[in-house]
């Protein structure tokens, strides 16, 4: 099947308006005859479910957590971008569009990104109307801060808990519709298969995680908003339950999976402390506004620090290497995430790492504390030469900005980040790849849509900070509600879809057989054992730096683990009860397939771009070397029975508004 991205005609800035003017609409009386399933209740799923219900559709929403409010969007810290230009610093829709395309290393679809930039302003208006308590200035107007990869302040935030506040906004909008009966909420449910009837997505099979019951749910359209697949690395900043299962199941039913190798490694996470570790914790990118990243300039200093003989505060200014400021003077510590991550890895690989494992760099606030302290002292007419006073005043300012993050750091690491620099290291954070969707956010399965992080659409090969929240809410609040109506318009007279068809029967049996096989295999190893093994291969060979040999090995090794998994995994308890180990194993089974496709995609893409860095393809300075002639396309993979047999389809990317150049932040 040829890929049709269905991008409307016209100039990039008119496409979305023209599109909306000409789509089919469903009249309000008919909307109540149409059912829509939404899987996932994060920013994308939650906002979509609420908006679709407001419009009048009957929404059936599903989440694996005990409440929609707990989706992992809640953990997003830094902020959400919008081209409001409230700061008057030259921001505009075009500039947000341009920054995003450039930030994505020219591997995103222009039309989608421009639409995203257009609706970004509506998101802020909508959220404020909902009562989201964004940070404000003393004049009562909204405050902004700047994020990596941009030269303007366009990020709206609510301290270090922006994702939480936005999600609770969407959750409250959902609650209003649940209360009205327009959303039927299914908590603690996991989607385990998609049901296709006559070529269209018409329902899902879900497991009730409390009772273990396998349930059939039908609808006129199915929306997947199940987030990203960063947990394929085992250790990531994703929640423990974040999984690829819903997205992978639709892939196996015919939805193409695009660019799986585009993974964001976030530069500022708390380093790994030991083998027991179950997950990694992010320190918001906003910290790079005020924190300076460095390692010792001398190898012997780094060694002494690792051995505990030297403290970071004892290293003289001249003996520190502020490597981001050195390499990228224009953007300094605010270079995009992929660049900051690779630079940290480069220094640590060269032996300058600063924790026991040698995999950490410093994020230092001493300069910011001093700068703010002096400001405050002047403001309050106090003695700016009194060091203790300046530090005290400066600490207050920093605490006010990032207090909750510093507290989180202290609880985990047991060190006071006001007094000694934080230690950070890159960790898997976000996946730009995902199910392929056209301009309507529809996958290659008619009636099956994919929104938010679970699709591939807007970020290209790298995502700029504060853009994920923007995309999730844009898709859910402002894009899908239009595009899904266009799809549903012909279905208004269909009536309720029966769950008694052979297709539902077949899908349910499919799920039951897989569970049966896992429960009764006579294995002896915990599911986590396989997940950790997979994660190690992914991190070592498919992580921040990849090469052809490693990727080939990884594919074979992952296939082998998968085989071992089905034979050896041990799941205690029963299938017809609350069984967290069974739920986990079902997710790991899908990661074990995705991981292989991931490596295959990374191997085929013979270039470096954004989050995908192939050691063979770099500039003499060690920057990513794109190959626009041969790889300016979206790689969409079709499932053919096994990840290794997946067939590649290409969607050529056309850039009419942005000139492709070597990305530079120098």
């Amino acid at each position: 099947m040829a890929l049709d991205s269905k991008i409307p005609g016209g100039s990039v800035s008119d496409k979305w308006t023209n599109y909306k003017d000409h789509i089919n609409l469903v009249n309000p009386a008919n909307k109540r005859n149409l059912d829509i399933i939404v899987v996932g209740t994060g920013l994308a799923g939650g906002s979509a479910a609420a908006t679709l219900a407001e419009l009048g559709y009957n929404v059936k929403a599903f989440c694996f957590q005990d409440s929609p409010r707990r989706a992992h969007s809640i953990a997003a810290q830094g902020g959400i971008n919008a081209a409001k230009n409230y700061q008057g610093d030259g921001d505009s829709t075009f500039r947000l569009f341009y920054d995003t395309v450039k930030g994505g290393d020219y591997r995103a679809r222009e039309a989608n990104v421009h639409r995203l930039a257009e609706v970004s302003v509506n998101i802020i208006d909508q959220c404020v109307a909902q009562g989201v308590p964004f940070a404000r200035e003393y004049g009562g107007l909204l405050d902004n801060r700047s994020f990596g990869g941009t030269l303007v302040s366009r990020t709206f935030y609510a301290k270090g808990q922006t994702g939480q506040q936005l999600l609770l906004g969407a959750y409250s909008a959902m609650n209003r519709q649940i209360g009205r009966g327009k959303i039927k909420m299914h908590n603690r449910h996991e989607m385990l298969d998609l049901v296709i009837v006559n070529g269209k997505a018409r329902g899902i099979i879900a497991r009730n995680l409390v009772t273990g019951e396998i349930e059939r749910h039908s609808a006129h359209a199915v929306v997947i908003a199940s987030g990203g697949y960063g947990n394929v690395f085992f250790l990531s900043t994703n929640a423990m339950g974040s999984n690829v299962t819903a997205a992978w199941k639709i892939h196996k039913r015919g939805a193409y999976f695009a660019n799986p190798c585009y993974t964001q490694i976030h530069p500022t996470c708390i380093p790994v402390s030991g083998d027991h570790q179950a997950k990694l914790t992010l320190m918001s990118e906003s910290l790079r506004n005020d924190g300076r990243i460095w390692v010792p300039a001398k190898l012997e200093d780094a060694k002494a620090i690792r051995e505990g003989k030297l403290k970071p505060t004892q290293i003289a200014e001249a003996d520190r290497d502020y490597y981001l400021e050195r390499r990228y003077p224009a953007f300094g510590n605010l270079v995009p995430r992929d660049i900051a991550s690779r630079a940290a890895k480069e220094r640590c690989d060269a032996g300058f790492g600063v924790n026991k494992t040698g995999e950490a760099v410093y994020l230092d606030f001493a300069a910011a504390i001093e700068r703010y302290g002096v400001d405050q002292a002047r403001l309050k007419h106090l003695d700016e030469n009194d060091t203790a006073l300046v530090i005290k005043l400066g600490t207050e300012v920093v605490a006010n900005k990032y207090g909750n993050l510093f507290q989180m750091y202290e609880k985990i690491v047991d060190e006071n980040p006001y007094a000694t620099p934080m230690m950070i290291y890159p960790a898997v954070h976000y996946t730009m790849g995902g199910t392929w969707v056209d301009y309507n956010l529809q996958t290659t399965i008619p009636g099956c849509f994919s929104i938010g992080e679970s699709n591939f659409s807007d970020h290209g090969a790298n995502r700029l900070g504060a853009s994920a929240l923007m995309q999730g809410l844009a898709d859910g609040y402002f894009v899908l509600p239009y595009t899904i109506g266009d799809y549903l318009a012909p279905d208004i007279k269909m009536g309720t879809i029966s769950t008694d068809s052979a297709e539902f029967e077949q899908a349910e049996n499919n799920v039951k057989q897989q569970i049966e096989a896992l429960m009764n295999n006579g294995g002896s190893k915990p599911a986590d054992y396989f997940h950790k093994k997979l994660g190690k291969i992914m991190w070592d060979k498919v992580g921040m730096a990849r090469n052809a040999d490693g990727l080939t090995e990884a594919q074979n090794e992952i296939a082998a683990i998968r085989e071992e998994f089905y034979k050896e995994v041990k799941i205690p308890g029963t299938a017809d009860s609350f069984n967290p180990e069974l739920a986990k194993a079902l997710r790991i089974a899908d990661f074990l397939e995705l991981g292989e496709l991931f490596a295959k995609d990374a191997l085929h893409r013979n270039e470096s771009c954004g989050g995908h860095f192939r050691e063979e393809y770099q500039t003499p300075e060690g920057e990513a070397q794109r190959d626009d002639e041969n790889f300016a396309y979206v790689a969409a993979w079709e499932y053919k029975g096994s990840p290794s047999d997946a067939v590649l389809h290409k969607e050529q990317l056309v850039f009419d508004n942005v000139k492709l150049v070597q990305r530079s932040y120098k």
Partner: protein
Amino acid sequence: MKLTLKIWRQKNAAAEGKIVEYPIDGIEPDMSFLEMLDILNDELIVKGEDTVAFDHDCREGICGMCSLYINGEAHGPDRLVTTCQLHMRKFKDGDTIFIEPFRAKAFPVIKDLVVDRGAFDRIQQSGGFISVNTSGNTIDANTIPIPKHDADRAFDAATCIGCGACVASCKNSSAMLFVSAKVSQFALLPQGKVEAADRVLNMVAQMDAEGFGNCTNTGACEVECPKGISLENIARMNREYLSASLKG
């Protein structure tokens, strides 16, 4: 570290539960409490026993999914943390640790340490929102300036993660801190004032219907709240409720 865990085991909602003792060894101070339970569970699997079920998800203290009543306190002995952010350095070698589910009639046990906090969702559904449809053409976000002080207090109330530690800690299993946080967030913002009266009346009615106990101002909730939600919110809700009722 070597520890003795005394854990509440209960097969399902209908079954009787009891405390079961598990010795555990090799625990390091840098581990989180839940990582310690992960280790216990892996050991149980290898032994062929059923694992201890507990709720958890983000493991960075924000989703509100983890619970656990540890040694007589919600989220354990540390302050301003959820269980997932509690680290084993807060315990000593040889300690005995009681691990129980959050207990309240309104939070029935599903299995072991997992409880059903659906009552919280139902309270929010009864009025924890501002009735504004998604249109993309609401007024510009900067049309109504909001004093920073009010916005900050609304934010502080809004940081509630809905974990239920307040209910678990309260000797009366009262949900007042949780409900008042949402009531306060909206009562402090001009957008929320329009429906403030109906909101507080409906949310309190639902709270009562769920079977939570009555607040007696012991203040335990505020101390145990991982987000430090202030008792001030309860006073504000009482005020809002009284004025809404009297207005009728």
